[in-house]
Structure formats: C-alpha cells, structure tokens
C-alpha cells in the first residue's frame, strides 16, 4: 500500500468526523447567528447583526462575561499559588510523598456534579445544618446562607473552593513534574555562590526554571474558568447572582430554544477564546508544532 492511500486510511475517519462534528456545526451556527431561529435549527429570517447587538448590549450576556472575569480573577491566582506551594512542599519531603500526592490527586476522580452536591447539601448548606455553619456556631457565629447571600457574596467562596478541591491535584502533578526536571546542580551552584536555601533560591532558580509549566498552568486555568458550567449550574442554577457564559447559553438554547441568539453567543465565545489562544501563542508559543 502506498503512502497516500495509507494516509487516508489512517486519517480519513478522524478527519471526516472533525468535518461533520466540528467544522459543519460551527459553520451552521455561524449562519444561524445572523437569523431568527426560535424553536428551530433552520434559519427563518435574516436579521443581520441583530442577535450580536442584542447580546453585546447591556444584559445577561455581558453580565455573564463579567461573572467569568470575576471568577477567573479569584480562581486563577489562587490555584496557581496553592498548587505551586503544595508541589514544592511535596518535593521537599523524603517520606510518604506518594501518599500525600495521592490524597491531593484523589478529588480529580470526582465530577463537578458530585463535588457540588457535597458542597451544597453538606458543607455549605445554609439553612440550619451543614459543616461550615456547624463549625461557625462553635464560635457563636449565626448561620450563613452561603448560596443566597448577596452582601457579602459568600457564593464565591463556595464556587472557588469546589474548583480548588477538584483541580489542585491536577496542577500539583504538573508542577511536580516541572520541579523534578530542574537540575540539582543549579541549586548546588547557588549554594556555592552563597545563596541561602529558601526564598532566594526559590525566586532565582525554581520560579524561572518553572516558567514553561507556570504559563501552561495559568492558561489551562484561564480556559477552564472560561468553560465553567457544571458547578455554577448545580450550585446556583439560572441565578442572576453569578451566571457564567456557558450557563447563559445553556438556558438560551435549551430552555428558550432560541438558537439564533444561542449561536451568536457561541460565536462570540469561540472568537474570544481564539483571540486568547493566538495572543498567548505569540507571546509564548504554547501549542506551536515542534518538528
């Protein structure tokens, strides 16, 4: 068999799938986004940019982008610092490293649905029970309605801790892999030059050597925050308190069967993520095909 038929035999099924289930949907959605399409996935009436203008005017879609911004501003730095800290700690101990690593990694087996369930019905249940309120009552603090209190917005604490619990282990593993690639000779050389173990070597050796991993962790985190759906849907539903873009789109497309606006929203989100990817590719080259 020649190379060309072999190439198509190996690549053909995959490529056909990409065309039907990735490119075609996006193209169809692009067409729909310029049409009125209520209760139907057929274009009904050309409305030009109206769907886009509706979404980008003041309203729930813009609010959802703001929700994402707040969420990313909370979760990205927290995840970065905590996973780096735990990875460094793990890397410094000699005994039981595998045990601690497994304990931190185990929550990644849980789905957001299961984690939201434990958070909502057990830890942060606001009515009269729940672990957080039980513990606070020991200090004489009144019950807190974690998911419905607006000022202060305690729901961010619930949302952030769910994600931290589920995701930290994954990023700890990435940082550990990065830490273990750093040559011990670098530290030895620094000690010879009089550097003290601790903050000095961390700042001047560990952090710069982890640059690749750090950028990957930040970007993966940002994209994961952008795609947040499961925990918001299960903890807050269609609440206007914090409705990220995918939750807004879900209710637009599923409950309202408004595929025109839904498609326009999907196009805007896709465009934003492509912009971010291209920007970071210019800065950093992550995902650039090596040869």
């Amino acid at each position, binding site marked *: 068999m020649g190379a060309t038929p*072999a190439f198509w035999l190996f690549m053909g099924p995959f490529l056909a799938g990409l065309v039907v289930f990735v490119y075609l949907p996006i193209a169809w959605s692009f067409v729909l986004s310029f049409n009125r399409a209520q209760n139907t996935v057929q274009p009904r009436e050309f409305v030009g940019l109206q769907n886009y203008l509706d979404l980008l005017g003041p309203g729930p879609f813009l609010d959802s982008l703001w929700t994402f911004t707040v969420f990313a501003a909370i979760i990205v730095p927290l995840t970065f610092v905590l996973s780096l800290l735990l990875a460094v700690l793990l890397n*410094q101990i000699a005994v039981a490293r595998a045990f601690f690593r497994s304990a*931190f990694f185990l929550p990644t087996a849980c789905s957001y*649905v299961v984690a939201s369930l434990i958070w909502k019905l057990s830890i942060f249940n606001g009515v*009269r029970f729940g672990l957080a309120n039980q513990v606070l009552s020991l200090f004489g603090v009144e019950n807190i309605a974690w998911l419905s209190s607006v000022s202060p917005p305690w729901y961010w604490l619930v949302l952030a801790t769910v994600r931290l619990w589920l995701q930290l282990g994954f990023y700890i593993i990435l940082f550990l892999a990065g830490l273990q690639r750093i040559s011990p000779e670098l530290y030895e050389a620094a000690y010879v030059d009089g550097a003290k*173990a601790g903050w000095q070597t961390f700042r001047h050796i560990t952090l710069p050597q982890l640059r690749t991993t750090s950028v990957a962790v930040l970007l993966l985190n940002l994209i994961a925050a952008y795609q947040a759906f*499961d925990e918001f849907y*299960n903890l807050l539903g269609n609440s206007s308190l914090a409705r990220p873009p995918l939750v807004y789109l879900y209710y637009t497309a599923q409950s309202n069967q408004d595929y025109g606006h839904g498609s326009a929203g999907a196009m805007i989100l896709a465009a934003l993520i492509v912009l971010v990817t291209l920007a970071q590719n210019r800065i950093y080259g992550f995902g650039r095909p090596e040869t």
Partner: protein
Amino acid sequence: MRQSGIPVTVARYAALVVATVLFLLPFYLMLRNALATDREITGVDWTIFPSSLRWGNVAEAFADPTANLARAMFNSAFIAVTQTAGTVLLSSMAGYALARIPFRYATPIFYAVLLTLMVPPAVTFVPSFIIVSRLGWVNSYQGIIVPVLFSGFTAFLFRQYFLNFPRELEEAGRIDGLGYLGVFWRIVVPNSLGFFAAISVITAIASWNQFLWPLVVGQNPSMWTVQVSLSTLMTAQTINLHQVFMAALISIVPLVLVFVFLQRYLVQGVAESGIKG
C-alpha cells in the same frame, strides 16, 4: 536538596497533613451522609459519626425510581467504554498518520486539526447540538458518544508521542514485509501500551465525569448518565438526602477503583499531556 533542620521538616509535614485532611474531608462527609439517616444529616445535633451505619441505604438508592441509578450507571459505563475505545482508536491512527506517513497535504491537514484545539468543545455545544438534532440523534447513545470522539487534542498528543517513537523498530517491521497498517498494529501499538493506557484512563475519567453534553443530548430519563441523574436528584422538589449522597458515593466507586489500580498511568498521562481534567 540540602538537608533542613528538624523544625522545618516538622512544619512541612504538619502543613501537608492539614492539607490532606481538608482534601479527604469531603469524601468522608459523602460516606458519612450516605450511611446516615436524613435526620442525622440535617439535624441540629450533627455528629461526626452517625449513630449506626445503615448499609440498607445502598439497596434503597438503587430502588429509587426517580434516580434510575442502575440504568444511569449502565449508561455512563457504556458511554465511557465506547467513547474511550473510539477516541483512542481514531486519534492514535490520525496521530500516526500525521507523525509518520508522508503525504503532500499533511501540513495543511495538521493545521486544520490544530485549529480545532483552539475552540474547546464546551464552547461549541450549541452548534454541535444543532447538528445532532438535524441527524435525529437527540436522546440516543450515538448522539452522546459520536460527536465527542473526534478529539483534536488527543490526536495531537498521539502525534507528538509517535514523533519520538524509535524509527529502527518500524524499519525492522518494514523489512519483514509489513505495510503501514501492519507496522502500526504489530509494532507501534504493542510497544506503546503505556502511553495508550495513560490516554485511555484520562479519556475514560473525563467521559464518566462529563456533564454538559449528556445533559443537552440525553434529555429523556432513560438516557441519563449518572452525572445527569445526580444533578436531577439534587434539585428535585422532595429530596431524600441520604439517597442523594449514597448515589453520589456509588457513582465515584468505579473511578476510585481506577485511581487505586491505574494511578501510575494517570499521573503519567497528566504529566505528559498537561491538559484535560
């Protein structure tokens, strides 16, 4: 690494132990509540241990018709297995073609695959749903499984892996008269089982835990996956708390088993891929 003093070492371990307790606490709460009564979950007289362990809650969770737990577990297992097999087969072959089979238009095709990496599937669920509903696949296994099979990212990972596969092994096969398909199946795959296992474990876990897509496509209760079923239980009007926690506990058993037995591959896969939860 330089030796540290005893106080520093103690402080490190203390910090790790505190973190471990926090990480394992939610598992304990799930287990405790699954084996307790509703009163013991919600009562003001909350205790760390329930008064007795009610193993009958297991049978009760399976008997509950709203949750449809047995059916949901079957759906999730069937979807996870077929999705993993399909994804690994399709993307390993595509990755191999991109890495090793010379073809005039391989570069533009590679860029077309890379392009799909940029837009994550969660962002394209509206367009994908439109195609699936045109195909009449809403509320069907193929509707949940097939659109997710074509992972540009997994194909990309396989390509990167095959680029580093030793060429001498393949050449030995070619001398023995094997074509591309023969070399792939008889030499490349058997010598890459660790990598295949790593990708399979990650894909299976992601598939078992996916929520948005099965929620959108599998609207009929008979098509619910275990995640959709749990979510419905959680927001139901009348809610049996111990049943919800028991169902959640049962839903994580397969994954905890995977973790215990296949953690090596999982860690390898995460460290190599750096993506996917």
